[in-house]
């Protein structure tokens, strides 16, 4: 487990809308070590409502800070979107285990919607390791494709699917693909993850999925973020958020 490096108040460097409802916030804080797929817990309000921190995957880190990509879905994210340069924000992280990237094989990344977020760092890391990877990215509406721009900019081969336009899902692409001995890494809506897992199961491929549950502490102490595994309930925050699909007992 990577040690948590911060529970502090950091400065907001910038907070901009990249597409209606989608924002990128840059925090003036650079953790020493981050694994792709790890996340942070942000206190979206200094008051007692909302009370709990909200979990967000780390999109990118660089010397100037840490980037988070988020979609406004409720009260917490709405408050987050109001923050301006110079405001201060409470961060706890990095948390969770993140993706284990294989030395011995290639990968396929499957993302749906905001599930794209961890894959920018995954792709960068794989590039550093000299591995090639492929992205299958599915979104509901065309304007969400912008979220994949950075990854594609890395030179990653990408299959983009717009549900409303193509009448297709990312799993349809995966289904037509030869997976071979590649490891599939997936993040997105629960339904998509289950489908990916069952496709992999059928072809005997390794499949790692990053799952979401409601969280309170993010540190493995409240036992609130339980997910059923073949080994009983485990905590998404501390034991995950990335699990081997087999452990989750998702079978085809």
């Amino acid at each position, binding site marked *: 487990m990577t*040690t948590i490096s911060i529970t502090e108040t950091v400065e907001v460097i910038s907070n901009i809308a990249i597409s209606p409802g989608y924002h990128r916030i840059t925090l003036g804080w650079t953790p020493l070590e981050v694994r792709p797929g790890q996340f942070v817990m942000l206190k979206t309000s200094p008051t007692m409502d909302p*009370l*709990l921190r909200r979990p967000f995957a780390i999109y990118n880190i660089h010397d100037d800070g840490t980037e988070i990509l988020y979609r406004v879905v409720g009260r917490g994210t709405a408050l987050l979107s109001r923050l301006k340069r110079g405001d201060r924000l*409470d961060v706890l992280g990095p948390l969770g285990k993140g993706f284990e990237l294989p030395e011995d094989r290639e990968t396929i990344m499957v993302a749906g919607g905001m599930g794209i977020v961890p894959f920018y760092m995954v792709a960068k890391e794989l590039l550093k390791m000299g591995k090639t990877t492929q992205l299958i990215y599915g979104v509901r509406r065309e304007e969400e494709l912008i979220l994949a721009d950075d990854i594609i900019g890395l030179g990653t081969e990408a299959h983009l699917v717009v549900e409303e336009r193509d009448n297709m899902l990312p799993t349809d692409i995966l289904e037509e693909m030869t997976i071979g001995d590649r490891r599939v890494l997936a993040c997105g809506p629960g339904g998509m993850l289950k489908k990916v897992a069952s496709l992999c199961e059928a072809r005997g491929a390794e499949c790692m999925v990053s799952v979401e549950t409601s*969280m*309170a*502490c993010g540190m*493995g102490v409240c*036992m609130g973020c339980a997910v059923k595994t073949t080994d009983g309930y485990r905590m998404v925050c501390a034991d995950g958020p990335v699990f081997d699909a087999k452990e989750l007992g998702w079978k085809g």
Partner: protein
Amino acid sequence: MEGLNTTVQIAGGFVLKNPVMVASGTFGYGLEFAGLMDISLLGAVVVKGLSLRPREGNPPPRIIETPAGLINAIGLQNIGVERFLKDKLPEIKRLGATVVANIFGESIDEYSEVARLLSGAEGVSAIEINISCPNVKKGGLRFGQDPASAREVVEAVRKSTELPIITKLSPDAPDLKAMVEAVESAGTDAISLINTIPAMAIDVERRRPVLSTMTGGLSGPAIKPIALRLVWQVAGFAKVPVIGMGGIMTGRDALEFIIAGACAIQVGTLNLVEPDGALRVIREMEAYMHKKGIRSIGELTGSLVLPER
């Protein structure tokens, strides 16, 4: 802070270096926080409720946020007393923490067996008996609602351990006074309250309860005014020391409970939101004592001035 006496003696050898403990179920087994803070600075660490055998807990969803509150239905998932003694306790002790073991059982025998196992070990300073958990019933009534069965539990634990016993009460006992008398006569050394308040949330999209168990327990700042009222009432008739909790987020909140009659307090939900929040609470209490020229925390306990009427 220099010259301040913040120690609290709850019972015989059970002395806290300061009145701020972290509440059961909100601090894991203490070790999770070790990288972030010095847990030896806490009054005590009350560990996650322990049962005789490991427990799975309830199916998800287990938590839901409410205005200034949190409903949980964890279902007392824990590793069981034996693994606790083997894997966790030595490490917590090494870090210098004062440890209180919170326990529960599905039967009176289970309570006393867990207590017996804990007293055999080195390093547990006290036992907190949770008689208010919703999953533990006897004849349909939870132990925490019926004074007679609460007495039986505490008597059984009393027989199986020499450790100081804290009995943790439920806020929805129909008759708290009878409850306190029952557990006092059974030999409890202290009382702690409140546990979470039964509560509910409904997902209107699906028209289903949000939690897998329909209802859960409400904690956090939302319940503080209710918890404070209950602690004040109980401190008014309890003969043993009272440990107060429920929604404490600041030193001032903690002081409200102390002034109302608690000799010590616990912070729960705060730990989930601000992992080192309990240390801030201690600092804020000390700053208050300093400013007010109060040298010993004992001067504050129960120091509420009643209005003239």
